[in-house]
Structures are given as structure tokens and as C-alpha cells.
């Protein structure tokens, strides 16, 4: 458990299997934050991962921040903040409507 934020040692999320070395895992975390950031930007949310604090920090424009442990929790947090889930099959992602 992290003594600062009280995060319990969680069971590994399935997406975390892809890294063989600590370097790969860190790179994968940065990459995950990068993809999340670009997806969430259009919804007025931010994603931040500094590689030290466990999980991803999801923030709103008004400054509230939640730490999400893994991707499942990220999408639950985003759903709570937006009031609805982000659907990858939404018109904005499949290039229909006004995008």
C-alpha cells in the first residue's frame, strides 16, 4: 500500500501485462496518459500521470482531481464527472455528424 495516498496494492489490471521490464511499464503508463489526455480533452477533462503517484489523475477544468487506479476506474470516474460514459462508438469517434 502507498503510505501517502492509501492506495491498496491492487490486483494487476489486464492492460498492465504488456510490459516485461520496469522501463516498459513506465513507458506504457506515460503512453496511457497520453492517449487518455487526447481523448478526454474534448470532454473538458484532463489526465495526468507523473509516474510517481499510483494511477492516473483525472481532473476537471474547475480543479477537482480524482486518482483512478486502473483503466476500469478511469472510465467510472469519467462517467461520474460527465454524467454519462464516453462511448467509443459515439458519432464523434466514428466520424459522423458534426464530430
Amino acid at each position, binding site marked *: 500500500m502507498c503510505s501517502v495516498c492509501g492506495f491498496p496494492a491492487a490486483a494487476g489490471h489486464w492492460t498492465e501485462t*504488456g510490459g516485461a521490464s520496469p522501463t516498459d511499464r513506465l513507458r506504457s503508463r506515460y503512453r496511457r496518459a497520453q492517449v487518455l489526455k487526447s481523448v478526454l480533452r474534448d470532454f473538458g477533462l484532463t489526465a495526468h500521470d507523473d509516474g510517481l503517484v499510483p494511477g492516473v489523475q483525472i481532473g476537471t477544468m474547475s480543479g477537482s482531481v480524482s486518482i483512478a487506479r486502473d483503466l476500469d476506474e478511469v472510465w467510472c470516474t469519467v462517467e461520474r464527472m460527465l454524467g454519462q460514459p464516453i462511448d467509443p462508438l459515439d458519432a464523434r469517434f466514428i466520424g459522423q455528424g458534426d464530430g
Partner: protein
Amino acid sequence: MRLTLLGGFLGSGKTTWLRHQLHAGVFPDAYVVVNEAADTPVDDALLSRASTIEVLAGGCACCEARGELVALLRRLCDLRSRTASDSARLEHVVLETSGLADPAEILDAIRSDPVLVHHVFVSETVVCVDALHGLAQLVEEPLGRRQAEAANRLVITKLDEAPSASIGRLVATLRSINPDAVIEGAVKGSPVSAPTAAGEDAVALPQLDGSAAGPIFPTRLSLDDQIDWTAFGVWLSALLHARGNDVMRVKGVVRTSAGRLLLQSVRKVVQSPEILPPQDDRDDDTIVVIGRGYRAEDLRRSLERFAGVKQREQGSIFEGVS
């Protein structure tokens, strides 16, 4: 520790099939767990061939007795961990669920338990389907349908008792629900040749409990250099979060820095990917998504737009869209 899930509707022949498999030595040294919804266990008396057998009675393992199932599996993991790795130890558990259990719920129970997720690998989900009543259960019972959707292997039992035309219809319907599963046949538990659809058409299944209408179809997605494993994981987790009830199954092999990963999911539950031995295979980096309620090309476009962020560049994925 491997776990084989055996499911199927009430009276679909689960115990008979398991009894024959144990007799034929298919699961040597397996620890058999039988879950019964009723309070009085009967099945354990039938399954005397098993080397070790445990009965979880008085509740279905996917809802009421979920805690008991988790506790039992934890105890088995504990037992295994206490045995030295060079001596014979428990490697395989066969769980026969009650006829009222949804296999996906049990997978979820295992997946969400912090201890079991590291110890238990669900190697196979076998679902028995009754040749006589299976079709009616698929049409009328949401549960019967969910069980068939969750299977890797569908065993059609009581083949000798049903006319071949209705078996053909059943096979075609099962194929339309779960195009991915292996279909086998059995008579009184012993394997017979797999039945075929024999030209019969699938029965149109009425919509149940508000699930999205439309046929279930497989879509192949190939991952190119642009979309790496991490970006794909972000996309798939978002898709399963939003559309978990429509996306029935995801399966495929992806190359990552850790090796080739075998990815499998049933509804919202994704198994921890298994690392496969290296092998040159053209099917790598191809994912099959089975589901309904969307169009195949939308899925591809969504993956490109959602996860196709260039590495080491902060380019917006929406550039060139609006």
C-alpha cells in the same frame, strides 16, 4: 491453478457429462467443486469417481453463494501455495455450476478478488445444452442465452433423443449467438460426433430484457504500428465500459514487449492475458470482436480515432475531423 467452468441450464446434463469425463480420465487429479442451488446435495453421490470433491450447496455461486465460492477457491489456493512446487500439488479445479448460474458472473467474481486473480486461470468454459429443450431455453430464458454466450465449448447433450431437424436448428442458433465456440455432441456423457446445422436456419431470437436487438456478428480488427497495446487497452476498456452488454466476446493475439499475449474477454470481464511462446504467425495483432448493436466499420474507425494517437507526439486525434 487452472479452473474449468462447467455450466448449463437446469437439467442440461452437466453432471452426466462431468461424470463421464472423470471416468474417462480427462481431468486427472482434478479437484471437483459442485455447486447446487438446492439445499440438498445429490450430485456428489453420482460423482464418486472424482479424487476429491467438494459440494457448495444452498445457493447459486454467481449470486447468493458467491462469497462461499470465493472463500473455497482461496482455501484451495492457500493449500496449493503451502505445497512445495516440486511435489505433486493441486493444478486443476473443475467447478460445476448450478443450473441457475451465469458463468460470466463467476468469472467476474474471480477477476475482482485480489487473491484469486493472481492464482486462478480460467482455462475453459464448457456449457452443456440440452438437445431437447435447449432451443426453447435460448428463446425464452435470458439466462440460457447468457450461458451459451459465455462458453468456449458448447456440448450438446441427449443427442439420441432429439430429431435431427431440431438439432440442426439448435446448432444454427447457437452458432448465431456464439460464433466462436467449439460445438461438440454427447450421448449420456460419452462424446459422439459433433452435430452440424445440416442446412437448417437459425431461429430468430426475440429480444429479452432490453438488450440491443440485431444479429451478433464477428469483426476482425488489425492493429498496425500506429495502435500499440497500451492505446488499444485504453480503447477496449472504454468500449467495454460503455458497451459491455453488446460486446460479447473479444479474442486475439497481440505482440507486445513482453511477448505474444492471448487476450480474451467475456462481456465486461477481461482475463489477465496469457503470455504465449514466440511463434511466427500471420494472425498476430488481429483481434476478433463479437457483438451486436453497432456496425463493423464503425468499430474500426472508432479504434483509429480513439487510440490512433501518434507516439511521442501530442497531436490531437480529432485533427482533420471537424
